[in-house]
């Protein structure tokens, strides 16, 4: 456990010592802020009309839910930037030799690195919390669905980060690691449209594998154990495969 924290700390410091952390956070804040201002303005307009018709509108339903849905999509693009360096950089600079010849277990290195990237991802999401806090300051949104949506974002991000970690062990080249991770993220996202034109079993299975499908219940404010299990097992599977990949690294290199 001590080693996990040690490596996690080192990763976090590495992120914040380089421009990556700031770039990712700024990018996210910019896109999210732009969408947020658009949505709130639209909401203000529509709710004026709704007030005249005596139909109160829900902030949760009209702003927070679609916004956090967007956040999950933006995250798909940011995650490769976060994970690409995790192992690829160490392999390139040779510091992997230090880690692998220290009395630390492979799994401690992997979990430490994943946790570091996860915490950075948390910081990125925190950027959106500024906007959401404004809604709480001036409106009366419901608290619980917001928390559940954030939990969903964290779980979804965690599983994509684990996949990115796995891919980062496979190459020395950060650009390749980032590119492949992005492609895989995109693929997992696109699987959700499988059932749009086709309702065969294959399409349904594909749809189930999509990382976005399982986020829907969270964004509605529902905590469905089935989706939690999906994400958590995804994280475990990807990190397990990472440890296998690292083992094969030793045997091959």
């Amino acid at each position, binding site marked *: 456990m*001590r*080693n996990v924290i*040690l*490596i996690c700390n*080192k990763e976090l*410091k*590495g992120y914040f*010592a*380089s421009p990556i952390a700031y770039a990712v956070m700024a990018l996210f804040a910019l896109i999210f802020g732009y969408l947020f201002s658009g949505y709130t303005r639209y909401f203000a307009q529509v709710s004026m009309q709704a007030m005249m018709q005596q139909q109160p509108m829900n902030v949760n339903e009209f702003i927070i839910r679609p916004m956090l849905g967007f956040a999950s999509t933006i995250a798909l693009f940011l995650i490769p930037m976060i994970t690409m360096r995790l192992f690829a950089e160490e392999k390139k*600079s*040779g*510091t*992997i*030799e*230090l*880690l*692998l*010849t*220290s*009395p*630390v*277990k492979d799994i401690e290195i992997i979990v430490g690195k994943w946790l570091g990237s996860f915490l950075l991802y948390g910081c990125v999401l925190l950027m959106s919390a500024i906007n959401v806090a404004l809604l709480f300051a001036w409106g009366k949104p419901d608290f619980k669905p917001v928390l559940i949506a954030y939990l969903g974002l964290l779980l979804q991000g965690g599983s994509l980060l684990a996949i990115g970690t796995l891919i980062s062990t496979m190459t020395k080249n950060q650009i390749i690691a980032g590119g492949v991770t992005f492609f895989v993220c995109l693929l997992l996202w696109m699987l959700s449209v499988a059932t749009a034109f086709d309702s065969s079993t294959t399409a349904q299975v594909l749809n189930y594998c999509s990382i976005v499908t399982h986020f829907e219940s969270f964004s509605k404010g529902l905590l469905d154990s089935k989706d939690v299990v999906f994400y958590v097992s995804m994280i475990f599977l990807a990190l397990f495969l990472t440890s296998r990949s690292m083992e094969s690294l*030793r*045997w091959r*290199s």
Partner: protein
Amino acid sequence: MIKVQGLTKRYPRTVAVDNISFEVEKGQIVGFLGPNGAGKTTTMRVLTCFLPPTEGTANVAGFDVLEHPEEVKKRIGYLPETPPLYPEMEVDEYLTFVGQLKGISSKDIKGRVDEVMGRCAIGDVSKKLIAKLSKGYRQRVGLAQAIIHNPDVLILDEPTSGLDPKQIIEIRELLKSLSGEHTIILSTHILSEVEQSCERVIIISQGKLVAIDSVANLTNRLRGQEQVAIEVESADGSPDPGEVQKRLEQVAGVSRVMMKDAKNGRLLFELESLQGRHIRADVARSVVNAGWGLSELRAVGLSLEDIFLQLTAAEKNDQSKKEEGGPQ
């Protein structure tokens, strides 16, 4: 302290290390010598548990590298060919990280970091970013990293590569001060390095063990044999190089004459004596008696370099002979 038996590392297309066995005793400082690509780094990587061996066993401080890698790693300090540094960290921050990674408690870490910084003379850059350090400092930070947890065994892959002569001497001094309490294996392809700082030499070539011996024994092997370089003046193609060569070969005690160069009116030869014969006086007399101008004559010391070349060349000859005789 270190016991390697029948170690083999095979890759899909090549054999990097082929059936190597050796032992290193506690407190010794051993040089691992071989041309580039001989398998030095691979052997070291097996010893540090970075790579598993294909066949054979390696035992460090009583623990097998495959069965108890954790125990081995605790007792080993390793400096790879390129020091494993994080450029975004400051020197003391980096050493603290490595120290904790190696299992030093947070209570003792500060003292240890200060001590190794003093020992490797990097105290003046402790607050500098590693990215901004010069090559010499990086190498020393790498060395500090290897000794921070006071390991029983130090494995250093070309610790002096890329350093200037003054820094090389400093590193050498440091290694000497470390031997005794630590067992040190260092690899190099620079022979004077081994002559200077090692007690024993392990020579490998093309993945095979060529020789293990003490430095003194190895130089003794060829002591008594003399190597002489001479320079004969010549004008207008006279004397004829062939004639000079013939005459030199006739001098008593000369076993081999090699023509090195012939230009600008000078003929350069290199001579080797038979075991235990001094030939310089006879060679000089012979040249002068023939009426040629002798412009230079000096003894060339037989260094480890020659031994090394002879050993690795012999190895190659044996191999080609075996290959020729193999199919019958």
